[in-house]
């Protein structure tokens, strides 16, 4: 991010040593530019919690009411609708209408936690529906929370509103307890990460859907009938790859689909480049869209000859597809979620 914005994490760290942290963050530019991808944290030789510092400083801003309007709106929406997309909580499970998905209150082995974006965004709803179809095919006993599902709080925490995050976390844990949830599968790596690493006192197992699908394939519970003769490359989402070390299951899923030729970009796995969708960045527009990392990333995918750029994160899907659309690249490359590819091949 340093390469395109004023954001320099090292300066923020230095300043916090001897100045009043709040003042620093008010004076310096760029605190909202961090995508919390944690590339710096993972590489820091002294193990400094850089991402934590960003979140901490942002929380000072939030406390002081100095929030960029779009972020303020997103935070407000979460408080009212329990999602950052300003749509009523009553409409949360609309995407599932007609699919016959059972509600978790009827009891199920697994809770499929859809997440805000897949629940409301028209593009991502397709992914959610694809996941439902895959799980049904494999005969997985699962249920959803329906309109009772609320935001996981991952992004809100990264936007600095730690108070609302804690409130959301407590509320969600209560709901999970109520339905005796033992295992959760998420669409988004962001929900996955926060459930796994940031929910204190939680007592459930959590999986990203690519992990579950990979194990279903391995157990022989999913089989493919359609061939997809395409060259595919895979973009590792930061919150799944770098931050949680899940590199192989998505690749295993892709390579099990007949016809797919998987090629790797130069920056793959731990080396993956962030798409800029994390850390609340979905709600702030980058100043100069010329240098968007997503654009670089799509370029890298095309360089290795990929016809499909596959990913497994709602934010990655949106940011990357946006580049393809605005750049008129739809003829040469297509951005798809792994779930969509699996569904197609079933």
């Amino acid at each position, binding site marked *: 991010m*340093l390469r395109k914005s004023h954001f320099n994490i*090292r300066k923020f760290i230095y300043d916090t040593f001897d100045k009043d942290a709040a003042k620093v963050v008010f004076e310096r530019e760029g605190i909202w530019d961090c995508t919390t991808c944690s*590339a710096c944290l993972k590489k820091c030789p002294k*193990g400094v919690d850089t991402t934590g510092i960003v979140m901490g400083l942002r929380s000072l801003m939030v406390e002081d009411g100095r929030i960029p309007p779009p972020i303020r709106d997103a935070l407000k929406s979460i408080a009212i609708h329990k999602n950052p997309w300003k749509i009523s909580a009553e409409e949360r499970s609309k995407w599932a209408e007609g699919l016959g998905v059972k509600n978790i209150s009827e009891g199920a082995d697994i809770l499929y936690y859809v997440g805000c974006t897949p629940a409301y965004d028209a593009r991502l709803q397709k992914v959610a529906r694809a996941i439902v179809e895959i799980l049904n095919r494999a005969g997985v006993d699962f249920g959803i929370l329906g309109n009772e599902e609320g935001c996981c709080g991952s992004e809100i925490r990264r936007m600095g509103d730690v108070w609302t995050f804690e409130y959301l976390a407590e509320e969600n844990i209560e709901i999970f307890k109520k339905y005796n949830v033992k295992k959760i599968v998420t669409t988004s790596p962001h929900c996955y990460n926060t459930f796994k690493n940031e929910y204190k006192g939680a007592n459930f197992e959590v999986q990203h859907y690519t992990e579950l699908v990979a194990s279903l394939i391995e157990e022989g519970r999913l089989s493919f009938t359609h061939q997809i003769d395409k060259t595919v490359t895979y973009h590792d989402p930061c919150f799944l790859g770098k931050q949680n070390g899940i590199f192989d299951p998505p690749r295993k899923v892709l390579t099990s689909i007949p016809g797919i030729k998987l090629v790797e970009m*130069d*920056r793959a796995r731990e*080396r993956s480049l962030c798409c800029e969708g994390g850390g609340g960045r979905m709600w702030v527009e980058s100043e100069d869209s010329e240098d968007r990392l997503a654009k670089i990333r799509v370029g890298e995918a095309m360089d290795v000859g990929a016809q499909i750029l596959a990913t497994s994160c709602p934010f990655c899907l949106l940011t990357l597809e946006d580049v393809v659309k605005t750049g008129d690249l739809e003829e040469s490359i297509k951005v798809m979620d792994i779930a969509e590819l699996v569904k197609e091949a079933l």
Partner: protein
Amino acid sequence: METAEIRIGVYICHCGINIASTVDVDRVRDSISQLPNVIVSRDFKYMCSDPGQELVRRDIKEKGLNRIVVASCSPRMHEPTFRMTIQQAGLNPYCLEMANIREQCSWVHEDREYATAKAVKLVSAAVAKVSLLEPLEEKEVEVRPEALVIGGGIAGIQASLDIADAGFKVYLVEREPSIGGHMAQLDKTFPTLDCSACILTPRMVEVERHPNIELLSYSEVIDVSGYIGNFHVKVRKKPRYIAMDKCTGCGMCAEACRMKGKIISEFDVGMGKRSVPYIPFPYAVPSKYTIDPENCLFITKGKCGKSPACKDACSSDAIDFEQKEEIVELDVGTIVVATGFDLFDAREKPEYGYGLYDNVLSGLEFERLVSSSGPTQGKIVIDDKEPRDVVFVQCVGSRDKSVGNEYCSRVCCMYTAKQAHLIHEKLPDAKLTVFYIDIRAFGKGYEEFYDRVREEGVRYIRGNVSEIIKKGDRLLVMAEDTLLGEPVDIEADLVVLATGIVPRKDVKEVGNLLKISRSPDGFFLESHPKMRPVDTATDGIYLAGCAQGPKDIPDTVAQAKGAASSAMTKMARGKVKVEVTTASVDTFVCRGCGRCVEVCEYGAPNLEEVEPGIFVSQINDSICKGCGACSVVCPSGAISMKHFKNEQILSQIAAVI
């Protein structure tokens, strides 16, 4: 155990007025005289003076005393004095107990009443303990005038030569076919730019020729037992499949081999190729060939053409596929551990693209590339092209918690400077950039060398590299210039990673073998970081070189000489005193549970099978240091700590309360 009646003499010292001004010595003397078994209780102005000591000696003789209590200063001060005193009068020196009524009473308290009361308690405790003390015999063990040196790198070579020069027999065990270690792989050495081979080879040859050194190359230590002076060592000599006495080192076998040029050369760190019969490098010692059993067609498949090509080619009939491994048993008095280090594997830092891009090299790979004996005969070429832009990255695998190595490897700053200089020398037009966090040029002539390299135009940028990616057929190196606070991207044709020093991957097994412990960084632990830097906690085992921690060549040589000197000191005297106050096992009580074995840092207790299925712990008192940890964990009460037995300490507790 003595069964005779206990007759105690108690002597209370005034220490001039040091004790007497705060403690009422008369009262102490009188109270103590009432205690059971106390035959005499006296006070004296200076107990440590000649008349004071004489008083004790006379009483021992005249009154038949057999236990003595001296209440004076700290036992850390005068215990040796009074032990000698009573020994002169014919008593066992361990029949003495001191009460510290100066440092821990008169000097730290002001109230005379309290101080006197406390002194009475302290002396009573000493009386209580002394009546339960048992005479102990001091023991000496012989030290064999032979040493084992494990590892034939520069540390092992130096230690072996020093010990051998002093006239002692040395067994030098090296796992590889040749001695020389990592130093043999280096090109030039900083800061003086001596050619590494030029200064090392003569030492290697000296080892081979030395009448007191027996070199066991291509061999591994597999078992060590015993203790200082009397270690028993088993060494496995791996089969070379080539008779050492017949091989002339001519190399015809390697020439003839069907796998010639197909095997990756370990010495060239994967950058060159070799045959199955090989000599690691041209100036190897011993200069004998070895057949690599893992890649030999005849050994792995049982067939190599009609007959093995090497066998046909050898004119001295040295090839012998019938060779078997051999176990050699040695008895030595001391051991020097010089097992060296491994290079950090840069694949653990995937952001640098090592292992992914051919033009990202480790520090050692670059050494081979630049060496005239290396795969390119010293030409710096990548894909047949000379690099125009070269980037050096410091601290790869050192000072890095994310890979678990918090320490500084101590050599990378300087070897990077040297490598930059070597490129500059060969490719004066190349643009050289070094990314660093701090430059540590602490040795003699190091800072000057660093300055010289910078004067040569090498650009030093403060900030470490975050990522290396491909850009066309070149590399893009990304970092922040932390002095300017700005991002910096540099395109390069070659990146050299200053890969650090890490403990050898088998360091744990070797540690267990020798029963020596490791510090948190994983290297072998010295007895004291400052005062005993070459000793280990196990008497008779000494450390040299990078096995103990990262070091450059001068420090390695210095430490090797230190280790040699420590070993020689013990061997020169020929005898060594062992701890008297050791733990001992009542073998009848012992349940053989092994908790003492688990808790002991020195490997003194050992479970021995006395009858089938019945184990009993035996403590080797030549190894035991007397800490007493085993007696605390012993569930059955079978272990007692001489001079600090349970009942002795309990009697003290009862007396002080």
